C-alpha cells in the first residue's frame, strides 16, 4: 500500500471491490493524524474538498451579491451620491460618491461571472457533488483524489484572480458576463485580460472535476448499487458532469483565442475595417464577432443545466425524504434529465436570435427550445405528483425544496416567450430576460442549494441547524426574492433594456422607475434575510450532537458516521433496494434504508 496521504490515488482507480476492502483495512490500521496542511489545506479527502468548495463558494456568492446591492443603489436612485460607501470605494469608482458608468459595468459583468462560475457551479457541483456523491454511492472517496485536490486548487486562484482584477488599474472586466467582442477586446483595461486568465483556471477546475465524477459514479458504486438504484441526485450529477466535460472545452478554447486577440495581435473575433472613436483600428481583421457568441453560448446554454440539474437532484432527495414516500416517476425523471442534457447542446443559438440569423436557423433553434421545455415540464410534474399521497413534514430543507417548485415553474414558463422568436424580438435583452433566468437560478437553484445545506449539515457536522432561524431565513428570503424578480417581468414588458446605468434616460424607463425602488429595497432586504442563516450556520456547530440519521433517510450517505471518517464507511456498505423506500406497507418504521439487510 501507498503512504496514507496518497489514500486512494492508486487503489481506487481500478474500482474493483477487493481494493476497497484492502483500502479500508489500511485506513483503520494506520490511525495517525495527518499534519494540518494535509488535512485542511491540501487535502485529498473528498469531504474536506467539498467543504473547501462550499465555504469558498458561499463567500463568493456573498461577494457577487454585494456587487449587485451596490448596483441597485444606482438603479433605484440614479446619480445620487452614496455617502461613506462611495468614499470607501474611491474616486475612480465613485467620483464624488456617485457611481461612474464604467464602474457600474464592472459590477454588472463581475456579478454575473462571480455568481455563475465562482458561486453556484462550485457550490452545486464542487461542494455538494464532492461531498455527497461518494457517500451516496458507498465509495470511500472520489476515484482520483489528487485530481480532486487539483480541481479545487485551480478554482481558488481563478476566483481570487477574478476578485483581484477590481484592484488593477482601470478596474475589472466591464463587457458583461458574456464578454462579447469586439467590445471586450477593445476595452483597454488589464482587468479584461485577467478575466480571461481567471476563466481559463475556473474552466479547468470544472473539467478536472467532471472527469472525476464520471469515473467515480461508473466505477466506485457499492455492491448491489445498480444504476436504477442510484439516488436521483447522483443521476443529476452524472448528467451534469457530461455537460461540463463536453461544453467547457469550447469556451476554454474561445477564452484562449480571445486572449490572443488581446495580447498577440490576432483577429479571431475582429472583422476588417473597425473604426474606434474616429480612428482606424490597426488590426489584421478578417475575424468574426459572432464566432465568440457561438462558442460562448455553446458552453453557456448547457451551463444553465449545470446550474439547475444538481438543484433538481437536491430537491428530489429532500422531497422524497419529507413526503415519506418514493419519488413519483423515478425512471421518468432519470430519462428526462438525460434527454434534457442531450437537448441542452442544440439550443444555444436562441441567445442569438437578434444577430441577423436567417429564418431556417431561427426556426430550428426555436423548435429545439420548445422541445427542451417538455422534459422540464415532465420533471416538474413528477415532483408535484410526488407530493400527492405523502405525509409532508415541513422541515427547513423541505420549505426550500417546496418553494423551488413554483419558483422554477415561473422561471421555466417565462422562458417560452423568450424562446419564441417573434416575442423575443421585443423581449430580447430586456429585464424580462433577467427576471426569467434569475427565477431559475436564484429562488430556483439557490433555494435548492439552501435546502441541501440544511439537509446535509447534520451529515457534515453531526449537528442540526436551528429550525426556527431556518424558517425565518426561508420566509424572509422567499418574500424578498419575489420582490426582486417579479417586478422585472413588468420592466421587461415595458421595454426596459438590461445593463443600463441610468434607466431614466428613456421615457419607458421613467414610467416604471418606481419598480426599481421596490427591487432595490427587496435586494437589501434579502441581504438582511441572510443574516439569520449566517449566524445559524456557525452557531449550530456549538449545538448538541444530533442523532445519527436525523431525517430518517434511506440513502447510503446515512450509513456512514456523521461526520464520516476518512474512508467514509467502517465496512463497505451493501445495497439491497431502491433509494426511496419510505412508508413501505408492512414495515414497522416508515423508512427502509438502502443499506439495511432483510431482518
Amino acid at each position, binding site marked *: 500500500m501507498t503512504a496514507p496521504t496518497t489514500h486512494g490515488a492508486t487503489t481506487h482507480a481500478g474500482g474493483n471491490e477487493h481494493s476497497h476492502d484492502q483500502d479500508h483495512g489500511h485506513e483503520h490500521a494506520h490511525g495517525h493524524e495527518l499534519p494540518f496542511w494535509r488535512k485542511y489545506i491540501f487535502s485529498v479527502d473528498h469531504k474536506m474538498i467539498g467543504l473547501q468548495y462550499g465555504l469558498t463558494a458561499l463567500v463568493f456568492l456573498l461577494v457577487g451579491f454585494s456587487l449587485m446591492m451596490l448596483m441597485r443603489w444606482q438603479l433605484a436612485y440614479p446619480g445620487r451620491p452614496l455617502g461613506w460607501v462611495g468614499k470607501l470605494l474611491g474616486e475612480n469608482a465613485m467620483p464624488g460618491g456617485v457611481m461612474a458608468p464604467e464602474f457600474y459595468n464592472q459590477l454588472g459583468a463581475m456579478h454575473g461571472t462571480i455568481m455563475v462560475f465562482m458561486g453556484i457551479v462550485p457550490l452545486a457541483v464542487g461542494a455538494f457533488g464532492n461531498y455527497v456523491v461518494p457517500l451516496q454511492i458507498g465509495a470511500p472517496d472520489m476515484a482520483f483524489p489528487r485530481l480532486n485536490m487539483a480541481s479545487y486548487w485551480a478554482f481558488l486562484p481563478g476566483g481570487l484572480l477574478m476578485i483581484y482584477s477590481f484592484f488593477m488599474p482601470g478596474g475589472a472586466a466591464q463587457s458583461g458576463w458574456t464578454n462579447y467582442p*469586439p467590445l471586450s477586446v477593445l476595452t483597454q483595461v488589464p482587468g479584461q485580460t485577467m478575466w480571461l486568465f481567471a476563466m481559463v483556471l475556473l474552466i479547468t477546475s470544472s473539467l478536472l472535476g467532471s472527469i472525476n465524477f464520471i469515473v467515480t459514479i461508473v466505477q466506485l458504486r457499492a455492491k448491489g448499487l445498480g444504476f436504477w438504484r442510484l439516488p436521483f441526485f447522483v443521476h443529476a450529477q452524472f448528467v451534469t458532469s457530461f455537460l461540463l466535460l463536453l461544453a467547457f472545452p469550447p469556451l476554454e478554447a474561445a477564452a484562449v483565442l480571445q486572449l490572443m486577440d488581446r495580447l498577440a495581435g490576432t483577429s479571431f473575433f475582429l472583422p476588417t475595417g473597425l473604426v474606434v472613436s474616429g480612428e482606424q483600428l490597426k488590426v489584421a481583421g478578417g475575424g*468574426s464577432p459572432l464566432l465568440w457568441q457561438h462558442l460562448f453560448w455553446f458552453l453557456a446554454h448547457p451551463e444553465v443545466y449545470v446550474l439547475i440539474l444538481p438543484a433538481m437532484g437536491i430537491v428530489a432527495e429532500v422531497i422524497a425524504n419529507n413526503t415519506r414516500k418514493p419519488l*413519483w416517476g423515478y425512471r421518468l425523471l432519470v430519462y428526462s434529465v438525460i434527454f434534457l442534457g442531450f437537448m441542452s447542446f442544440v439550443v444555444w443559438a436562441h441567445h442569438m436570435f437578434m444577430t441577423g440569423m436567417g429564418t431556417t436557423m431561427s426556426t430550428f433553434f426555436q423548435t429545439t427550445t420548445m422541445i427542451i421545455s417538455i422534459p422540464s415540464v415532465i420533471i416538474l410534474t413528477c415532483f408535484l405528483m410526488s407530493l400527492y399521497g405523502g405525509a409532508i413534514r415541513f422541515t427547513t430543507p423541505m420549505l426550500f425544496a417546496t418553494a423551488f417548485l413554483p419558483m422554477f415553474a415561473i422561471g421555466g414558463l417565462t422562458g417560452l416567450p423568450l424562446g419564441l422568436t417573434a416575442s423575443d424580438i*421585443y423581449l430580447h435583452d430586456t429585464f424580462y430576460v433577467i427576471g426569467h433566468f434569475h427565477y431559475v437560478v436564484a429562488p430556483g437553484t439557490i433555494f435548492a442549494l439552501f435546502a441541501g445545506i440544511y439537509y446535509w449539515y447534520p451529515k457534515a457536522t453531526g449537528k442540526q441547524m436551528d429550525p426556527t432561524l431556518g424558517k425565518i431565513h426561508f420566509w424572509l428570503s422567499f418574500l424578498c426574492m419575489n420582490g426582486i424578480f417579479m417586478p422585472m417581468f413588468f420592466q421587461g414588458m415595458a421595454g426596459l433594456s438590461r445593463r443600463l446605468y441610468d434607466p431614466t434616460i428613456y421615457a419607458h424607463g421613467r414610467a416604471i422607475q418606481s419598480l426599481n425602488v421596490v427591487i432595490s429595497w427587496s435586494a437589501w432586504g434579502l441581504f438582511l434575510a441572510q443574516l439569520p442563516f449566517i449566524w445559524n450556520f456557525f452557531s449550530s456547530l456549538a449545538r448538541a450532537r444530533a442523532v445519527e440519521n436525523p431525517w430518517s433517510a434511506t440513502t447510503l450517505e446515512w450509513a456512514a458516521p456523521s461526520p464520516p471518517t476518512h474512508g467514509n464507511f467502517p465496512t463497505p456498505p451493501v445495497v439491497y433496494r431502491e433509494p426511496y423506500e419510505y412508508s413501505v406497507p408492512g414495515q414497522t418504521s416508515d423508512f427502509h434504508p438502502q443499506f439495511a439487510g432483510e431482518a
Partner: protein
Amino acid sequence: MDETKYGFWLPVDVSSHGAQIDNLMAVVHWFMLLLFVGWGIFFVYCLVKFRARPGHVATYNPVKAVFTKYIEAAVVVVEVFLLFGLSTPVWFKYKGRPASEKDAVVVQLVAEQFAWNFHYAGKDGKFGKSSTATMSGDNPLGLDPDDPAGKDDITTVNQFHVPVNKDVIVELSSKDVIHSFNIPVLRVKQDAIPGTRIPVWFHATQPGHFELACAQLCGLGHYRMRADVLIDTPEDYAKWEKENAPTPSEEQPPTAQQPAK
C-alpha cells in the same frame, strides 16, 4: 415626447406587424398563467391535504395518473401552435427585407460608440459611396465627397425621421462594437454587428415622437446611446427632407444635424 404612452405593460404599438407580436405575447402569457395557476392549485391542495399529522401515513404505491399525460400532451400541442401558428410566420415576414421594395424608404444606419448615424439617399434615391476606410471624426459615415450620387444625401446623428404608412428598410451596420437597434413602440430589435450589414424593416402606422434605445452593452456610454424617432406625416417628412437637403452650392456637411443632446 408623449410620456403617457408608456406604462407597466407593453407600450403603445405604432407598427403594422406589432399587433401579431402582441397577440403572441398575450396568448403565451395566458397559457403560462393557466399552467401556473393549475399547478399552483394542485400544489397547495397537496401541501394542505397531505401534511404530516398524527394518524396520517404516506401512500407507498404510486398513484396512477393519466391526467398528467393529457397535460403534457396539451403542452406539446399548444407549443406547436405557438411555434408554427403564431411565432414563425411573423419572423418569416418581418425579418430581412419586405416582399416589395418599390415604395420603401431605405435608410443606412451606422452605429458607433455612442451614437447613431443615419444616412438617407436624398432626392435622387441613390446613396453616395461610403467606406469604413475613409471614416474619421469629421466624416463619421466615411462618405466619398467626389461621388455625385452623394451630393444630395442627407445625414443625421441621433435623429431618425421616417414617414408614416410607408415601408422603411434600415440597413444596419456598426463601425466599432456590437450595438442593437431597438425601438420598443415599433416592436423592432436587431443587432448591428461590425463587419456585416443587416437589413430590418417596419411600417409605422401613426405619427409621433418616440425613442430608439441601444439594447446591446456597448461600453460606458451604452445607457445614453439613444436617438429620437420621429414618425412624420407625409407633409412633415417632405418638409424635413427639403429643409435638410444640401444646397448644390454649399459643400456637403457630413452631419446635417447635431445630436439633440
